[in-house]
């Protein structure tokens, strides 16, 4: 067992690699070693993994359904039966928190899945083509950047109507511009590189160059940025839920749960306190992970 271990480590740290595959695995391994040496980053990663597990196993973990009411037990304080107490309809706050993890992570993932490719495509196209394409795309970008995210999202939600699907669309529409700007800056440093010229001479189309040769180089910094932005996205989503414009009842969304406790602040503080702590913890985890990833993937940027 231990001999196998040493040989695996030897293979991972060999000075001379024998295949591109080994080289790639080695790079990942060294990156992971640097990442894991930072305790705060590991804490962030652990919290996020924990949340993913909770979200996946929600029906198994939750003590009861998120919508099971028990009016005689309404506004019950935290106890052995209800760890986080019950809300104004007698629903178990812990159960709703557990299911709410699904909603929060789903919003975050959907926004990332929409905004990252959109930003990447617009940014790389803008940087690669230059000229009027660049001018037009970056003007549009400037317009979106000239609104603070929440205000723009509020405008879109007002136009599209409340609901979780529209909240995701609205947040995604506010999340792509910083990514596009970043991708454009990266592309500008790449577009005159020799390897790009080489592919172009081989007859590759602009689309192929952007997709296969420019985008992969932009990925690390985009991943870092989106991880750091995730904290803001979660807070914005919770804010929309808090205002009653995001997830609609009875869906257990942390922001709207927090808001439902406003009427019972002095008597039943736990209804608002528990979701708030979860929001802080989640966005803190994304911030810590993002900081750590930046140190590993994007050593040029500082602070």
């Amino acid at each position, binding site marked *: 067992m231990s001999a196998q271990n040493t040989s695996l480590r030897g293979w991972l740290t060999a000075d001379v690699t024998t295949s591109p595959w080994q080289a790639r695995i080695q790079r990942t391994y060294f990156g992971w070693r640097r990442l894991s040496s930072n305790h705060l980053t590991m804490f962030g990663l652990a919290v996020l993994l924990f949340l993913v597990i909770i979200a996946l196993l929600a029906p198994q973990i939750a003590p009861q359904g998120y919508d099971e009411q028990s009016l005689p037990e309404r506004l019950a304080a935290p106890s052995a039966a209800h760890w986080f107490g019950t809300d104004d309809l007698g629903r178990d706050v812990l159960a709703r928190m557990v299911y709410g993890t699904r909603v929060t992570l789903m919003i975050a993932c959907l926004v990332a899945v929409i905004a990252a490719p959109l930003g990447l495509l617009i940014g790389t196209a803008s940087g690669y083509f230059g000229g009027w394409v660049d001018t037009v795309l970056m003007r549009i970008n400037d317009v979106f950047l000239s609104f603070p995210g*929440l205000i723009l999202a509020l405008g879109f939600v007002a136009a599209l109507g409340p609901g979780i699907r529209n909240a995701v669309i609205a947040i995604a529409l506010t999340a792509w511009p910083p990514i596009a700007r970043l991708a454009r800056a990266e592309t500008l440093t790449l577009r005159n590189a020799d390897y790009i010229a080489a592919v172009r001479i081989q007859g590759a189309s602009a689309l192929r160059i952007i997709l296969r040769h420019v985008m992969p180089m932009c990925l690390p910094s985009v991943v870092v940025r989106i991880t750091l932005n995730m904290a803001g996205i979660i807070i914005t989503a919770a804010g929309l839920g808090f205002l009653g414009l995001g997830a609609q009842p009875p869906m257990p969304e942390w922001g709207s749960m927090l808001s439902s406790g406003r009427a019972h602040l002095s008597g039943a503080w736990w209804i608002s306190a528990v979701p708030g702590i979860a929001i802080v913890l989640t966005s803190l985890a994304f911030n810590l992970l993002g900081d750590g990833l930046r140190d590993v993937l994007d050593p040029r940027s500082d602070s």
Partner: protein
Amino acid sequence: MRLSVLKVVARQASSISTTLLGLLAVTFFMGRMLPNDPVLAIVGDLADQSTYDMVHHQLGLDKPLYVQFYLYIRSMLSGDFGNALFTGHRVADDLMKVFPATAELATFAIIIGVGIGVPLGVLAAVYRGSIIDHVARVVGLLGYSSPAFWLGLMGLILFYATLGWVGGPGRLDVAFMDSIETHTGFMTIDALWEGDMDVFWNALSHLVLPGAILGYGSMAYISRMTRSFMLEQMAQEYIVAARVKGLSRWAVIRRHAFRNILVQLVTVIALAYAFLLEGAVLTETVFAWPGFGHYLVAGLLAGDMNAVLACVLIVGIIFIGLNLFTDVLYRLLDPRTR
């Protein structure tokens, strides 16, 4: 020097007018995206076809889209945002009334943000890696990660409901309402103007908590940026030279390093001030603070697009204005950019 500034302003003006046009286009299309028919909202679904057509015509909806857009721009630029259905007043008048409340809150918040954030950032940079650096980092991270509306609620439970140290929601206790005349719209300044210290202390006790919570976010941002600017300066050779020359450590920091980050710092503070408008939306909702954010949310919940789009547009214009301001300031104050 004056010429170069003029040139910058001219270049900025052209780029800003296109951004402004885009801004108007975004709000215009937001207004058109509405799933519900604005004509039906006015005439009701019992109206006959001729009434419907008349209102349709009066609203200008039968004109081509580009004419509608042109008319929209014209009325927006002349400050005519239409009527707010949920208050019954003109949106422009409403905004004039609510803005001072937000300005007072934001000014208090930025004083906290700068007053604590800048010293904290400088100390964190000077004593890098020490306990104060770690404290600054944790305080900053928590500031980035905490939703202001939650901090507001918890603050209300602790400092208002439990300890009774601060005033509750709103700008004044009910007993003091309408007891002083409006001069500036800043409740604290108006109270001082009238010499009514009771009202002043009451207004201040209502301002402290929302102001501090709003200011916490900008403090986190300002201290983090200050720290990174200072570290950048302190790694420069001229700092070493000044130390070798015999200046004390703090003299170097104060007279050389800090003075060099001032311009960058002003930019950051201007941006932080702009972002307070965003934070104000939720903070004002929690504290029932009758300002701009409160108005925007009330308009949203009432489905009043005139009010909402005017608010969105105004924030966009303030953002563009602040960006222009910092750009010009940069060129004026920093000889290296010339």
